[in-house]
């Protein structure tokens, strides 16, 4: 953790009264929450509830209408570049280049994050070994399966050892085994001190998070540990918690 994050009292993300409006439509309506350093935080909600809008603001890609957002100890509105250097991002839409090889992708993103070639080489070797992708180093990315691409995209998103990694529906459409291998990658990253901020439509995955927030129509309708949410909602599963909150009738 760097000095700025320590000043923030160990919180990786701190959001106060965040509002985002598009014309008369309020996409984010006074969001308040914080995410502890090293936490795996699940950011859930129905399609159109405002999750992607909030993530874009947290990553410094979009400005809030009002409110205050601190990421990795920096005010995102004032120091977006400081924030961008300390975060990783992986979108639901695949973010690597299909017409580059596996290694070329790693080198490109490593260079974008300002890593030296020797560091890129070293981390690339380590990453390919971990993923058991060494043989595929010079293969065009487009020839890999979606599951492998997503695992690689995650490794690339944390190549520069960010303080926080944002994962926007990383497991959509991925097979059940790969989905679980992906979560092991997440656990491993969290174990190494990276804060994980993740959205998903698989509610069993909500159970793998330390805390979960559920957005309904631009607002955070619930935020707690999966266990507490189930108890509060007198629900058997996170699926039931989610259904009760998003379709109260």
């Amino acid at each position, binding site marked *: 953790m760097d000095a700025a994050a320590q000043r923030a009292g160990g919180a990786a993300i701190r959001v106060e009264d965040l509002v985002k409006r598009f014309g008369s439509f309020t996409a984010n309506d006074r969001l308040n929450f914080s995410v502890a350093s090293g936490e795996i935080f699940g950011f859930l*909600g129905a*399609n159109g509830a405002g999750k992607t809008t909030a993530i874009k603001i947290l990553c410094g890609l979009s400005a809030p209408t009002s409110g205050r957002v601190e990421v990795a100890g920096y005010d995102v509105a004032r120091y977006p570049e400081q924030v961008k250097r300390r975060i990783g991002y992986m979108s639901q839409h695949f973010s690597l280049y299909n017409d580059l090889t596996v290694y070329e992708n790693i080198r490109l993103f490593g260079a974008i994050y300002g890593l030296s070639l020797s560091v890129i080489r070293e981390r690339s070797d380590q990453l390919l070994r971990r993923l058991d992708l060494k043989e595929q180093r010079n293969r065009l990315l487009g020839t890999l399966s979606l599951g492998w691409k997503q695992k690689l995209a995650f490794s690339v998103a944390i190549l520069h050892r960010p303080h926080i990694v944002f994962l926007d529906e990383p497991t959509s459409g991925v*097979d*059940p*085994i790969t989905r679980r291998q992906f979560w*092991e990658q997440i656990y*491993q990253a969290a174990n190494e001190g990276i804060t994980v901020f993740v959205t998903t439509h698989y509610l069993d995955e909500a159970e793998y998070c330390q805390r979960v927030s559920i957005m309904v129509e631009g607002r955070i309708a619930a935020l707690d540990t999966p266990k507490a949410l189930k108890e509060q909602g007198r629900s058997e599963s996170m699926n039931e918690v989610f259904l009760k909150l998003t379709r109260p009738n």
Partner: protein
Amino acid sequence: MMISVHELSKGYGDIQALEGLSFEVQGGELFGVLGPDGAGKSTLFRILLSLLLPGSGTVRVGGLDPVRDLHALRKKVGYMPGKFALYEDLSVEENLQFFASVFGTTPAANYELIKEVYQQIEPFKKRPAGKLSGGMKQKLALSCALIHRPELLVLDEPTTGVDAVSRSEFWALLKKLKAHGITILVATPYMDEAALCDRVALMQKGRLLTVASPGEVVRDFEGLFYGVSGGHPYGLIQACRAFEPVVSVFPFGEELHVRFNRDDEAAEHLVDHLKSSGFSGAVVRPIAPNIEDCFMALMATENDLKG
């Protein structure tokens, strides 16, 4: 018989996309095709729909040969591809009218069939299709696929990336369409949806691993499953995997599902192994596998991978 496939294969250059597929789908059945990206689901669907030539083997859809009788076949089938494929610059209403007229019918003639779906987007009927939300696009695509009252509806991953609530609403709609007598063939990566099908086929790398009802998949599976909890999941996964007799370990909601070979008595000692590995609060309980456990086990056997 709505679909009958015998020894179907299809290759693209060096890649074998489908290898010796044989199965049948009865009229009125809700039939699920499950499998990871690249398993060959879309290739299979496109051959059934006459959009792609088979390599070898026999295919019959509604008694017709998709190669010889393609024009007759296309009147009988409705298709919703995985990617939104309607005209984004036509309005909701215009898209529906267009697809109806292509099939020589009108939206009014089959309104009763699409009513349930279409009513939800009707307030936006003047809006260009490209300006709809994901959920609304999906409902429009379904309406257009149904507008000529097909005997067979083919849906390629209609719920991928869709939230849990909208998914369950979509499946409620499929049940209603089934009640109209329409045969439904649906591909999905969601194993919980498999349980809602009459029968399911599991595909991997161009081959069929199994075709059975969800109940049979679970009943016929040979293996011993335990639910494990009581510790940080990452550490607990590693500790379970370090126990030699364990076949596979997968996180499953708030528990880990640990599989042993059938009749492996060593399973009883898992809890002692975990306690001696520092997980003093470990809880191990025998569980019945669910369909996702069974499919993962079948897929893993194919992959020969541990965990």
